[in-house]
């Protein structure tokens, strides 16, 4: 029985990459906290992961990058309106950033556990 590393690790690598992309989106929101008219962006992690994995299975795309399409960026709906049209709410974005960083660590830990399991299977 052969072990296909790219099949075994597809979910983990996509999850890590999407977490890194989401970090960038949230960092952009935090960077533009005082830019007039800037609208905060974000994407749905679960839907993007499903989309990336679906494309992967259909097209057999290379694993190093997401399967072609970037996640759909949506606009955040602010809790309050601001006078300058900026929809970044510092607390909301900081919380999302911290949660995303923690989720990145979770994805990394799962990847490490999987690699350890594979190493055990190989070594016997």
């Amino acid at each position, binding site marked *: 029985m052969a072990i296909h590393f790219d099949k075994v690790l597809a979910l983990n690598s996509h999850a*890590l*990459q999407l977490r*890194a*992309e989401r*970090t*960038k*989106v949230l*960092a*952009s929101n*935090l*960077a*533009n*906290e*005082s*830019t*007039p*008219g*800037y609208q905060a*962006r974000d*994407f749905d992690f679960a839907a993007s992961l499903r989309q*990336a994995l679906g494309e992967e299975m259909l097209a057999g795309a290379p694993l190093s*990058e*997401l*399967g*072609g*399409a*970037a*996640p759909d*960026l949506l606009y955040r709906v602010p809790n309050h309106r601001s006078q300058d049209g900026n929809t970044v709410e*510092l607390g909301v974005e*900081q919380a999302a*950033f*911290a949660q995303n*960083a923690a989720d*990145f*660590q979770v994805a*990394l830990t799962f*990847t*490490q556990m999987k*690699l350890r399991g594979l190493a055990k299977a190989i070594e016997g």
Partner: protein
Amino acid sequence: MSFRNIAQIAGSAMTAQSVRLNTIASNLANADTAAASEAQAYHARKPVFAAVFEKADSAGRVAGARVQVLDVVQSAEPLRRVHDPDNPLANEEGVVFYPNVNPVAEMTDMMSASRAFETNVEVLSRVNSMQQSLLRMGDE
């Protein structure tokens, strides 16, 4: 992975916030600078920020947004006119012009700017630790 871009985004925000702190420092320093005429008087300065969107490429990366300081504009609020005939700068009506700097507004703006700066420093250090742990993947 796009960690390098994140460093650029956070770095651009830190640059923009230090420009903002710079103008605030100059406004507060000149809050009591008298002048003989409206033209010579110091006017409060404010930076104008704008978002610069990256292009989304085909490799599944999303577009980030940096911050750019478009310009530093001078406030159009009326200057403070003070009747002070003893001042050597007073004009023939005995009026001296003081800047339109509002020290309370500048102080709150300063707190907001330094908090925004700190937020971006925090983003950088979190991204740094994420990158470090990604590099250590596979170690026990």
